[in-house]
């Protein structure tokens, strides 16, 4: 039901008091401006009283003219005043109420059937700081902050062509979180934008505090191990993806943006690749691919080989493994599961623990897992070494840490119970699964497979900037598959 602004100041004030009256941050002051009875309404935790004073009240105090009624004052403020603020007229009390929650100030006047809203945002916010999750040596050190408007500025500063479009949406029934849909009008893949917008508009969540709430609605397989939607908190990464024809989604209150679509090879890319020389960047990329497979398969392969095909080990290593296995009470694959789960517990504890006692975690983990357990004979040294190598390799590809962790355990189980056949079949199942993912009609494994020239340009390897100048690459250049049934 719409509540129109009545023009009766007292009646309109009652509406706001009914909505916010019990809130400690609700600020309402009646005053006379240019001989017109007015009311200033704001939420003082998100809007600054000082800002409202400086922007509107002080200049108007010095205004020599008087106005006959509120409507005349409103007309003056919206159309003729030289005040340095950009007001917006509202006729709906519901819209005015919402404006208060976003840091705006609302000015009500006696006799005026519209209110004025103007921005006086002044809330505590985190400053722009370096990224915690995507660390780089070269390039920008800026990461997104929690404030959407500030993040928009970081993007606009980097993409200065008029093709950059930032659309505003709302998500969350009770939070009405502002969400930005960002793309480059001249480069975005046709059909992709409409598909993303349609999916976002269909979302009906109770609340949205992070872009990850929206990610499952944009993925083709929300329960799969791999996601066709990427996450970044770096403005340079987001701008690079937009300039490749992708679409980004940012939400207020979180520094993490969604990138759509996101391909498997992109997990092995970072901004440092483009600042380094091509030969080194290519080397690091290949290293990351190798690290991924080591992280996933090494513990399982070791367990399978040690239990089922020990003849493949060199003799001296075989004796050591046999001696170590003979001295421990648990079967090898249970040891592997135990050590890997323990590593995950330690990692999670290190993340959640207060920083003041966080250093104890690494000490306890090193002593207990690395030393005491091995000396006691609970677990063998080979399995600890393998688990450590696997864990370190997993850290090389942090965006794939979640699927790596799960797959690692699955490979250990497959190798320990079924041997080489288990590893083989699970690997094929994983390959089929990864290759079967489509993200908005595009293969998740592009440009690795189906093969595209981009594999040498910026997939498995990276060519130099000189070779790539004058070309405009977008995701529309990737091979498209034929008709598909996406139901």
């Amino acid at each position: 039901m719409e509540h129109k602004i009545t023009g009766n100041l007292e009646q309109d004030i009652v509406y706001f008091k009914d909505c916010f009256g019990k809130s400690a941050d609700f600020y309402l002051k009646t005053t006379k401006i240019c001989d017109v009875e007015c009311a200033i309404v704001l939420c003082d935790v998100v809007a600054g009283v000082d800002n409202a004073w400086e922007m509107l009240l002080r200049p108007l105090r010095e205004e020599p003219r008087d106005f006959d009624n509120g409507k005349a004052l409103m007309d003056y403020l919206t159309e003729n005043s030289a005040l340095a603020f950009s007001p917006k007229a509202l006729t709906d009390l519901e819209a005015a109420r919402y404006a208060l929650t976003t840091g705006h100030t609302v000015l009500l006047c006696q006799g005026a059937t519209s209110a004025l809203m103007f921005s006086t945002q002044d809330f505590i916010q985190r400053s722009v700081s370096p990224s915690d999750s995507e660390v780089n040596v070269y390039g920008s050190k800026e990461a997104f902050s929690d404030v959407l408007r500030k993040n928009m500025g970081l993007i606009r500063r980097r993409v200065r062509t008029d093709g950059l479009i930032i659309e505003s949406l709302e998500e969350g029934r009770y939070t009405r979180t502002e969400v930005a849909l960002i793309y480059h009008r001249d480069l975005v893949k046709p059909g992709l934008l409409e598909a993303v917008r349609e999916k976002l508009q269909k979302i009906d969540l109770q609340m949205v505090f992070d872009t990850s709430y929206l990610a499952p609605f944009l993925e083709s397989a929300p329960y799969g191990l791999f996601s066709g939607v990427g996450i970044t908190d770096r403005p340079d990464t987001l701008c690079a993806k937009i300039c490749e024809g992708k679409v980004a989604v940012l939400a207020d209150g979180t520094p993490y943006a969604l990138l759509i679509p996101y391909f498997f090879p992109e997990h092995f890319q970072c901004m440092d690749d483009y600042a380094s020389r091509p030969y080194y960047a290519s080397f690091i990329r290949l290293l990351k691919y190798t690290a991924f497979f080591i992280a996933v398969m090494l513990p399982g392969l070791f367990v399978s080989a040690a239990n089922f095909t020990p003849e493949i080990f060199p003799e001296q290593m075989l004796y050591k493994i046999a001696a170590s296995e003979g001295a421990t009470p648990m079967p090898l694959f249970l040891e592997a599961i135990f050590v890997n789960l323990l590593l995950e517990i330690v990692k999670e504890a290190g993340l959640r623990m207060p920083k003041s006692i966080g250093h104890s975690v690494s000490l306890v983990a090193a002593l207990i897992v690395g030393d005491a357990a091995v000396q006691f004979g609970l677990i063998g040294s080979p399995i600890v070494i393998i688990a450590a190598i696997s864990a370190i390799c997993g850290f090389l590809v942090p965006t794939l840490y979640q699927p790596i962790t799960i797959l690692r355990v699955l490979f250990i189980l497959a190798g320990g119970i079924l041997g080489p056949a288990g590893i083989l079949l699970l690997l094929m199942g994983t390959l089929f699964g990864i290759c079967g993912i489509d993200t908005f009609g595009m293969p998740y494994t592009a440009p690795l497979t189906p093969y595209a020239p981009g594999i040498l340009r910026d997939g498995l390897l990276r060519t130099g900037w000189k070779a790539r100048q004058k070309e405009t690459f977008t995701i529309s250049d990737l091979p498209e598959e034929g008709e598909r049934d996406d139901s």
Partner: protein
Amino acid sequence: MLKQQSKLSSMELFVTGYLCLVIDLIAKPGSVPIKYCAAITILASALDIAVVYFLVAGITEWKNGAKLFDLTDTSVAVKPAFFCGFLLLAVAAGDTIATTFRFLRSASDWQLSFLVFLLLTLAIAVYASKLGVFSIARTAEVVLVLLIFSVVLIILSTLGRADLQNLKVSVDPAGEVLHAALRGFSVSPSLFAWFVLVSQSGPQKQGLFFRVLLAVFCSYVVFTLVGELVLGGFALGQSQPFYTLARIGNLSVFRRLDSLHSFVWALVLVQKLAVLFYTASLLLNGAVKKLTANAAMAITAAACAVAAILLGRIKMQMLPLILTVATILVFLLASLRKGENPPSES
């Protein structure tokens, strides 16, 4: 219904077809050793491949870009072709499972129940079919890279033992070539499965079929030549000479590379199984339109399981011949009722 439109690119079709055919040259446990030298077998295989090319291309009228199958055809006349194709591919899939199991058992000493292996491989095949032909085709490209890596590694690890003097020359080449060609002639059901995929992918360039066979032939030349160069006369008594090369090859301190190679070749076998299973389900769905996709896959899995169990227990020396004859017959049956002939892309 299973996804009917599956427009694979020429590259994807090439890789899928090549993998399904080339693995039969590498992993063939229990096969009869060829008693001829490399020169004879290479010439014989060239003759065989030429015969296969002209035979199959003629039956399917490849030149005109004709579709072998139109799965949207609901007429009763095509159902026998669909059903026979389904049976052929189900048996071939079962044979692939049995071959994979025998190969892995021969390559290492680990013990695993055949029933468990059967269930797991069928589960993977069903999973791949549910994901669709694009998943299978894209995985083929990954597996191809691994296969190329394996082959190159074998060649590098055994080249040191190669001796040109091991190459033999025959005294009666013409007769031996003919004899070897007759003995070794086969038309793999994988070829039929490949044609089903091609049918779904629209008109293809004339050279695609030729390129696939040429690639297989070139691979055979490499395998045979390297085998004879390294093994010499011992190659004649090997049922899997290329696997023997894998066993004896070493690089520096790395021994037992055959475990790595066996693993990669088993991946190719599973890839082939996925192709056969998918196309079998497709044809069953074409024969019985009322079946849901899941039902078609379940029936296909059951048929493959029965075939695998039977072929796993009964060693049929005549099986390659039976499959060859069956494949040719099914090609003929399918070509009796073809779809429209769109112009080729050549």
